[in-house]
């Protein structure tokens, strides 16, 4: 009898402890759920791009053969050299391409960012971006989901997940369809992945994009873009219609055979640059290259092309005499 009473008492104590553990755990979970996730900046809103860097490349478009500042390999150079600017006028399949997810932050588009909130937990599940160029839409998942299998479809925007590090959002994107590093034929392969680092400073947003591409880059390419909050901005639609702009026989893809592109020296000559430097490569990205770069062939006394791009916010004049 005494033994049974002790056992009952012991079981009761265990049950009591179990109930209290359960209750305490429940309280703890509820407490944690009600705590805002401090540190997360709110990126939601209307953002306008600032083209205060590389304006002529990003708006009217890069010069042919301008590979400056990109750590490309010879394979990328060969692809770039074969590019003919008529390609997008002739090959209609190229005409309505959106930018790749890695290029879109540099491209000529405004952006709206929405926060996707779980209605039950009120946790941030994803960030959604829309850009009014080729209707680009992208979702960046923050709910801890894994990236899909490598066999899953590759898209222009890719598959993005993100985590927070204090006030910085770190984004990782895979499953990219082949696109470009620069809009003059420098390719970026479908093997590439990229990481982004978003940080908001008041009304400014800085996004660093770090692209790794085993096919076309010899080292990670890091670029950054800045945006300014523009609450009055409203995005419109951007419906692309394709059609042949330059007459050409069906099936023709304008291109240059290796060593046959006559336009590659233009950028060096127009801007007074060493031709070798315009060919890009990791070596050219660092300060010591200033000391060993060769002399250019030409020395323009005055700027002659795209001199005022971005000066007034009204676009670019190719010829400065018209400004």
């Amino acid at each position, binding site marked *: 009898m005494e033994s049974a009473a002790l056992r009952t008492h012991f079981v009761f104590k265990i049950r009591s402890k179990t109930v209290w553990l359960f209750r305490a755990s429940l309280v703890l979970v509820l407490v944690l759920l009600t705590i805002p996730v401090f540190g997360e900046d709110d990126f939601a809103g209307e953002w306008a791009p600032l083209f205060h860097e590389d304006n002529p490349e990003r708006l009217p478009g890069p010069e042919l053969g301008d590979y400056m500042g990109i750590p490309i390999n010879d394979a990328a150079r060969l692809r770039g050299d074969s590019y003919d600017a008529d390609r997008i006028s002739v090959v209609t399949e190229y005409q309505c391409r959106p930018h790749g997810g890695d290029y879109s932050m540099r491209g000529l588009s405004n952006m709206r960012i929405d926060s996707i909130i779980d209605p039950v937990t009120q946790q941030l599940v994803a960030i959604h971006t829309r850009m009014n160029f080729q209707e680009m839409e992208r979702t960046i998942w923050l709910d801890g989901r894994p990236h899909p299998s490598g066999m899953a479809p590759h898209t222009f925007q890719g598959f993005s997940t993100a985590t927070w590090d204090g*006030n910085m959002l770190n984004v990782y994107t895979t499953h990219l369809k082949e696109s470009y590093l620069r809009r003059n034929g420098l390719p970026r392969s479908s093997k590439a992945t990229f990481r982004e680092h978003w940080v908001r400073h008041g009304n400014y947003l800085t996004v660093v994009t770090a692209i790794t591409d085993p096919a076309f880059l010899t080292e990670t390419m*890091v670029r950054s873009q800045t945006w300014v909050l523009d609450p009055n901005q409203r995005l419109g639609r951007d419906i692309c219609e394709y059609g042949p702009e330059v007459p050409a026989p069906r099936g023709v893809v304008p291109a240059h055979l290796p060593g046959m592109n006559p336009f590659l020296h233009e950028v060096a000559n127009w801007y007074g640059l060493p031709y070798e430097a315009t060919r890009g490569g990791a070596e050219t990205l660092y300060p*010591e290259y200033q000391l060993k770069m060769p002399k250019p062939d030409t020395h323009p006394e005055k700027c002659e092309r795209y001199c005022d791009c971005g000066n007034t916010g009204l676009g670019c004049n190719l010829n400065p005499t018209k400004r």
Partner: protein
Amino acid sequence: MNLKSRLLATTVAMSAIPAAMFAQAPPGTGLTAKAAAPIDLTGYWVSVVTEDWRYRMLTAPKGDYYSLPLTPEARKVADTWDAAKDVAQGKQCMAYGAPAVMRQPSRVHIGWDNDNALKVEIDAGKQTRLFAFGAPRPTSEPTLEGSSVAQWQSPQITRFYTSKISAQDPNTPGFRGQTPVGSAPPDTRKLGGTLKVVTTHLKPGYLRNNGVPYSANAVLTEYYDIHQDAGQEYLVITSIVEDPQYLYVPWVVSNQFRREADGSKWNPQPCELILSSK
């Protein structure tokens, strides 16, 4: 203390963690800027010139003002630029002032000058900047590097005030009876943060090597952030130059640097114009 009490105490203590976490190193806690640093900027960094390559690696030709939101007055001034005259007058360092120097291809060495000031040395042009936390170091004359006031920004510091206000309100759930001011705050370096630097008292100089001016009234605001990619550590500096005389909107750019293991590639060079004819 019985089990029930211990669990209750644990739960209450856990609920107080946020208040303690976000109360790091705000002004008034007695911590030095060095002790409160949410990120470690010290060390050697090298410019990674992947943007605006042709005007950063070389001196752009006269009249090349792309990407700059200039006023007509700025264009007028820049149109009179004469490189030879600058050299003759010893003005080679005009493009090495604070608003432009971090865009020069360079190596940057950041270290603590004292517990409340960071020293930033740039090998290009042999420039030195001092970021003072709290009151700026008084200067009698405007200088190329100007007078810089620094401030750490982190989620913890931002939330400190919220926590404090909440704790003072006895009806605020989750904060009742808590003391948010941490006398011995935990290390928050892994939680991230930003260094904000505001620079004024500048001597007029060039935003670009080819004579694009900024005035003595220019204000430079910079944000220093660190991130990691492919096993490398990078520093990105978002730079905002406000100068109503010469810029019709603030000029905003971001510059990347990669951390280097040591100063073996440190190579101080005098200010110079990297002309295409060099």
